[in-house]
């Protein structure tokens, strides 16, 4: 869409539509990541690209099915699409498995993040707003969770329930509840001191309204800044579990599982481990970089307000 064309349509619209369009354009302008360094911009674009490729993997022309052999066993990388990262011990395309593995990983990690955010924000708001017993309980939970090694917790859970995508998601979702709760609690406590919360109460707002409509919107920047690094942590945890064989069940591709598979052959085919490792390293790096970028923007915002 050219700017000139947009301008023409808005002038033709009745005033309220025109205002709507102006709001849209302001929103798009804000999406241009102001004050991002080249690496941060690269990270953002990489993540957007990763999501798009994972989402539309079925429509990439020429990409073979990740679960069926496509060529020689353990073929070294070459300059064809499916052979870019080589083939694994069963002759499957590693690139295809990395892409479908990305889809699996992103779905699991996103769902787990939603679970831990919803539970964590809920608990954190109770703790920060009502303090007292609620705070002690949530603190105890958060400290307990952070003092146990995550892999141990998950191994305990998975050995009871068995491995499946669902249990994987749920167990990963439990891991970060404490962290989100603690961050939310701190935010609620600091916002609660501000006069606008007092003003809302003076106007007759109930607890729910104060928490959800007054305080929560002001926590959004802080919370979004911690999401990417925590997601990165989940990707690593998911990778290590798959590596240990407690991840997603066998035929489905997963990054950790692929690394585990290629370590058997690493002395003879060292190049084949690069695909999944590159995927994990780049994704985790990009998520952490985006996290830093968002955190810095929160800082700038806070200073402006």
């Amino acid at each position: 869409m050219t700017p000139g064309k947009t301008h023409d349509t808005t002038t033709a619209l009745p005033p309220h539509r025109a205002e709507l369009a102006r709001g849209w354009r302001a929103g798009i302008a804000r999406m241009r990541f102001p004050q991002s360094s080249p690496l941060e911009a690269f990270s953002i674009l990489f993540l957007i690209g990763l999501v798009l490729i994972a989402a539309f993997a079925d429509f990439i022309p020429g990409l073979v099915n990740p679960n069926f052999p496509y060529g020689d066993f353990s073929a070294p990388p070459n300059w064809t699409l499916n052979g870019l990262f080589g083939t694994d011990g069963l002759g499957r395309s590693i690139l295809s498995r990395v892409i479908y593995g990305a889809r699996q990983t992103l779905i699991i990690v996103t769902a787990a993040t939603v679970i831990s955010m919803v539970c964590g924000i809920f608990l954190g708001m109770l703790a920060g707003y009502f303090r007292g017993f609620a705070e002690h309980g949530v603190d105890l939970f958060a400290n307990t969770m952070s003092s146990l090694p995550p892999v141990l917790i998950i191994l305990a859970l998975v050995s009871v329930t068995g491995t499946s995508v669902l249990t994987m998601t749920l167990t990963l979702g439990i891991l970060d509840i404490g962290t989100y709760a603690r961050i939310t609690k701190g935010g609620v406590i600091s916002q609660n001191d501000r006069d606008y919360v007092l003003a809302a109460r003076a106007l007759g707002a109930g607890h729910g309204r104060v928490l959800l409509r007054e305080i929560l919107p002001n926590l959004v920047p802080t919370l979004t800044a911690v999401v990417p690094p925590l997601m990165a942590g989940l990707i690593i945890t998911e990778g290590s579990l798959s590596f240990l064989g407690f991840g997603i069940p066998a035929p489905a591709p997963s990054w950790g599982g692929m690394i585990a598979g290629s370590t058997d052959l690493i002395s003879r085919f060292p190049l084949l481990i690069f695909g999944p490792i590159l995927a994990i390293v780049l994704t985790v790096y990009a998520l952490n970089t985006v996290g830093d970028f968002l955190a810095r923007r929160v800082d700038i915002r806070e200073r402006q307000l």
Partner: protein
Amino acid sequence: MTAPLLHVRNLSVTFPRGRQSFKAVDDVSIDLGPTEALGLVGESGSGKTTIGRAVLRLLPFAERNVSGEIDFHGRPLTAAKAAELKAFRAQAQMVFQDPVSSFNPRRRIEEIVAEGLRIQGVGKTEIAERVDTALAEVGMSRSMVEGRRPHQFSGGQCQRIAIARALALRPEMLVCDEPVASLDVSVQARVLNLLRDMRRARSLAMIFISHDLAVVRSICDRIAVLYMGRIVEIGDVRQIFERPAHPYTRTLLDAVPVPDARAKVVPSPERAVRASRLEEEGGCAFRTRCPFAQDICARVRPELATTPLGQQAACHFPLPAAAVPA
């Protein structure tokens, strides 16, 4: 005297400070008439703000310890249920010291002004109407504020919007907590005039908290002087300003800077020191700074009593008339 709108008896508020506790308000009793403006005056930490918030039931519920009675329209507020409290919210409103921080930075002004009405369940068309009226009353209009957020307005404008937000609910009582302290002097006058006009037009009762004696004098009918959480003197504006009975009030009035560059202000060191609030002690809290302190002041805590001058003061040795040079 007509029945008071607000009736406060033996209000005490303590905040926990680790093992100890901090008595922010100590046994305060106040009556506020239906159209009266009462000033609460005192130095930082004297309990002014805490009284204002306690009266509106706005203290942080996690760490407060409130005792005493607060009646509004003869009904006990301390025992009010949620629905009753919500109705009370429409009748008693507050204006804060820092207008910018009293607005949610993520809201638009028209939402902020309408918020109270929306919470109270007023219909949509009436909300629009009352928001327009309230904005007009503070010298603003919908077209000036529409779509804007608090940080786009100056402190004075924000304070006027805050007053509009409070008045949109048509309250009977307004608690103003240092409403002009964070504003430029030129803007202060405008906001003060606005508050005075509003008070007259709507026959509002007002509790006006300030450390600025001139401001209080310009707007209030009665003044309560607070020292360390207790009322040390309460009386009409004229009584307090012209013939203070309590030595602390006298100190406050003496501390008002005189617009004379040659005049030297020499605070006597011992009278500038305050005792710790954490240790509970008998006697008059002001005695360590009081030039007239005697043995009895350390032993017996003075109660509020009517002085020969007409106002009430909590002092064993109230000052005689005409103690302050004009």
